């Protein structure tokens, strides 16, 4: 709606914000250092609005906690827009100058009254009104979101809903405001920037654009396909259907990390060839035909791009173990073994230079220029200092287009057979497949095994107690986990992390994908809990 998926503003601006609207982000656990900036802002007097189905650390210090039913985000966001529109809190000058299609949103949100929203989301109507007024009337008001917004079958609508709020209040091109997706992994931004995408070459240039295609064909010396590729979720489905026959996977445990793990395994079983490149054995190994041992971040050079578009250096500190090699060296060798003349790059800096020369957004960035500070893109030439805040001069390239959205229920909701709604996420102490964090004493001491957060009334009804191991199942699979009776979840909802190979939460999750991005619905699926057979009574 107004450019590439990236934070419009910068992390250091957070401390000066007057209002933080944090939605679908458990920031203290998933982005602890950004959370520290938020804590600092709140300590300084900034208002904090948290929208999350769970009670999280930030909701404890929030002015308002909109504890919505999972998957009802569109209702909440449209109701917020409804209040802003009906109470005349919009920034008319901004809307007229910089946006189009606002009328469609006015029409779309007309029926999303706070009272009706309360029925669907469970958030009191007055609280919705208050949140809308606070957000609309504060100038330095920033939105911060992460996978709680995007990992839904309506993830794209959720993002549109947030962008509508930003545009109608003119919270763009203002320091400490804007729309800020916090990227989940160290180089999510950089992977997208570099063209690890089925539809974009490096620098967000479309593969179906003949001009871009010609440019990359000239640079790489081979004809290229003009057809859009498959995104990861579609690729996993195609694998299960037998349409994908060969797979190369670098640095991801797809069996543990992709939703509906059983389907992924089924696909891998019938694949003809699988190449893996990783630093540890993982759950996907049993399907591999070839495995390359790679260097970890401390053993190689390169760049990483963080959530606020900051290109920063990774520097080699130690040698890789045994015969392990940096991923970039392996990739070049593999290309050559397959008959493609990959250039003899002397170091990672030369690879970056090749990419930068093909990507106007990063054309001014080089290893030498990054130095100790990093550079935030866009950075079009070597004189440009980088861009901490987007849209500062004339907020938008062209016009920001409003998108009218409507609520669609999540793909799978609780029913009689599977009566509980499961959401999943990361914890502070572990990291994704946890091959790294489960090899360190602290995270293991804090969280040794998989658990499921359950509301006390649900626990009572099911006859299960805190610390007990139970069987959790969905239509796609089952596993055992330890019960944590927790005040953090809503009644009828349960929550699990996904870090534990022996109890893989993604056996349960739903791979139904977002209609645009294909991102799986990790945040909503239906499960049931059964107590395991009680152990035999110990002899008296």
């Amino acid at each position, binding site marked *: 709606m107004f450019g590439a*998926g990236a934070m419009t503003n910068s*992390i250091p601006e957070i401390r000066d914000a007057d209002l933080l609207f944090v939605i679908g982000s458990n920031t203290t656990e*998933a*982005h*602890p*250092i950004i959370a*520290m900036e938020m804590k*600092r802002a709140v300590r300084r007097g900034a208002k904090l609005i948290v929208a999350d189905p769970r009670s999280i650390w930030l909701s404890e210090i929030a002015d308002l906690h909109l504890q919505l039913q999972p998957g009802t985000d569109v209702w909440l966001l449209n109701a917020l827009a409804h209040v802003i529109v009906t109470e005349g809190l919009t920034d008319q000058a901004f809307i007229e100058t910089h946006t189009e299609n606002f009328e469609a949103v006015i029409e779309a949100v007309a029926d999303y009254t706070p009272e009706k929203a309360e029925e669907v989301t469970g958030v009191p109507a007055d609280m919705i009104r208050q949140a809308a007024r606070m957000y609309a009337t504060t100038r330095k008001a920033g939105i911060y979101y992460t996978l709680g917004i995007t990992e839904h079958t309506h993830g794209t609508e959720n993002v549109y809903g947030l962008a509508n709020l930003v545009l109608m209040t003119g919270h763009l091109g203002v320091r400490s405001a804007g729309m800020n*997706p916090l990227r*989940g*992994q*160290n180089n*999510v931004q*950089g*992977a997208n*920037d570099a063209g690890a995408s*089925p539809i974009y*070459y490096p620098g967000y240039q479309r593969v179906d654009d003949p001009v871009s295609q010609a440019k990359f064909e000239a640079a*790489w010396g081979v004809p*290229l396909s003009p*057809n859009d590729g498959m*995104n*990861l979720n579609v690729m996993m489905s195609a694998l299960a259907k037998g349409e*994908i*026959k*060969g*797979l*190369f996977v*670098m*640095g991801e445990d797809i069996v543990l990390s992709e939703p509906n793990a059983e389907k992924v395994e089924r696909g891998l079983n019938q694949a*003809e060839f699988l190449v893996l490149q990783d*630093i540890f*054995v993982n759950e996907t190994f049993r399907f591999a035909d*070839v*495995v390359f*041992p790679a260097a970890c*971040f*401390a053993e190689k*050079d*390169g760049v990483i*791009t963080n*959530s606020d578009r*900051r290109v*920063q250096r*990774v520097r080699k500190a130690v*040698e890789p*173990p*045994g015969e*392990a090699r940096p991923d970039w060296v392996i990739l070049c060798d*593999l290309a050559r073994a*397959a008959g493609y003349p990959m250039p003899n790059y002397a170091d990672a800096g030369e*690879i970056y230079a*090749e990419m930068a020369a093909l990507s106007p957004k990063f054309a001014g960035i080089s290893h030498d220029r990054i130095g*100790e500070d*990093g550079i935030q893109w866009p950075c079009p030439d070597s004189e440009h200092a980088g861009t901490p805040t987007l849209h500062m001069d004339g907020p938008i390239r062209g016009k920001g287009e409003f998108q009218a959205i409507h609520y669609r229920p999540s793909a799978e909701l609780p029913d009689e057979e599977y009566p509980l709604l499961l959401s999943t996420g990361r914890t*502070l102490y572990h*990291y994704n497949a946890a091959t790294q964090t489960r090899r360190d*004493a602290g*995270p293991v*001491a804090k969280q040794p095994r998989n658990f499921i957060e359950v509301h006390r009334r649900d626990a009572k009804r099911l006859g299960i107690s805190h610390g007990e191991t139970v069987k959790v199942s969905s239509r796609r699979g089952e596993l055992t986990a330890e019960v944590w009776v927790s005040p953090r979840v809503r009644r009828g909802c349960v929550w699990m992390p996904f870090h534990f190979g022996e109890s893989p939460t993604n056996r349960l999750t739903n791979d139904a994908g977002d209609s645009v991005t294909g991102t799986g619905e990790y945040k909503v699926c239906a499960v049931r809990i059964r107590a395991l057979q009680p152990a035999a009574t110990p002899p008296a």
Partner: protein
Amino acid sequence: MSAPLPDESFTLTINGQQTQARQGERVLGVAGRLGIEIPTLCEDSRLDPVGCCRMCLVEVGGQRRLQPACTWRAEAGQDVTTESPRIERHRKLLLEMYLADAPPVTDPHPLTPLNEISRLAEAHGALDRFPAACSEREGREDANPYIGFDPELCISCARCVRYCDEVEAVSAITLAGRGAGTTIATAGQIGLLDSTCELCGGCIDTCPTGAMHEKKPLAHTRTDSEVSTVRTTCNFCGVGCQLDIKVQDGRVVQIDSPPAGETLNDGNLCVKGRFAYDFIHHEDRLKTPLVRGADGNLREASWEEALKRAAEGLLGVKERHGADALGFVSSSRCTGEENYLVQKLARAAFGTNNCHSCAAT
């Protein structure tokens, strides 16, 4: 006369130099801008100033007593002196009292944080000449694997406690006891693992004496070999914290944050960034290429063999089913250059746009 507006600046004099300051600014900060260094112990730019260590006392015109520069607000027309025989006498005596209370370790470990008291004592000619203060402070072993506390080095500046309250905001630790016996503890004397502590290690980062210290490096490193530092970017979440990796004998022995104010993480790190580095040298790391043998098991192979097998396998799929029967999954855990190469591999070497990563946020 009405008070100046917050943004309105005014003039004051520090060590004879006229300078500008804004309403609400403290003398320490204004002097810092002029490049005037005032020694401090309890000050940390991330924390509210408390003025408890008395190290930064300066002369303020019109004030009979010395005043702490960290808490004293700059005012229009003020005349501040930061160096004088009187101030120097004060600093030396104060440091000698700190030395009596918390004598620095004579043979410090190469990875223990710099003891600020030793450094300042040397700079100001303070001697360890007073008998040890009475304090037998209470210390206790804590089962957590990362954070250690040596009560004998503690000067009760409370930087750790204030960091835990104000920055990490989990309030896991507190000052306990009174007088010379004041120490750092958890409420109810529970272990850190059972407290609200999130093991961020900020208490270690801010401690000026090394009383709060890391347990891991002390167990792993030698005292007689050099430690080098490499600045890099953390490999966990998308914040992009900068790290200083400490290397000894080819091994990562510690990970530290660059000083506060230098990088976007402002001296802060989380439990994963600061402590979860054992994986780097873990014995489970993959060390040789593997290929699936005729018996169905993965066996070790040479790079040459593994690369050949991989290329032939993928090209075979392409020949039999077309390029779009191949998929390439790149990684948002790897570098930008590596992601560039995976997509180039998919597109240029194998002819498909089926290239994505776990980066669908």
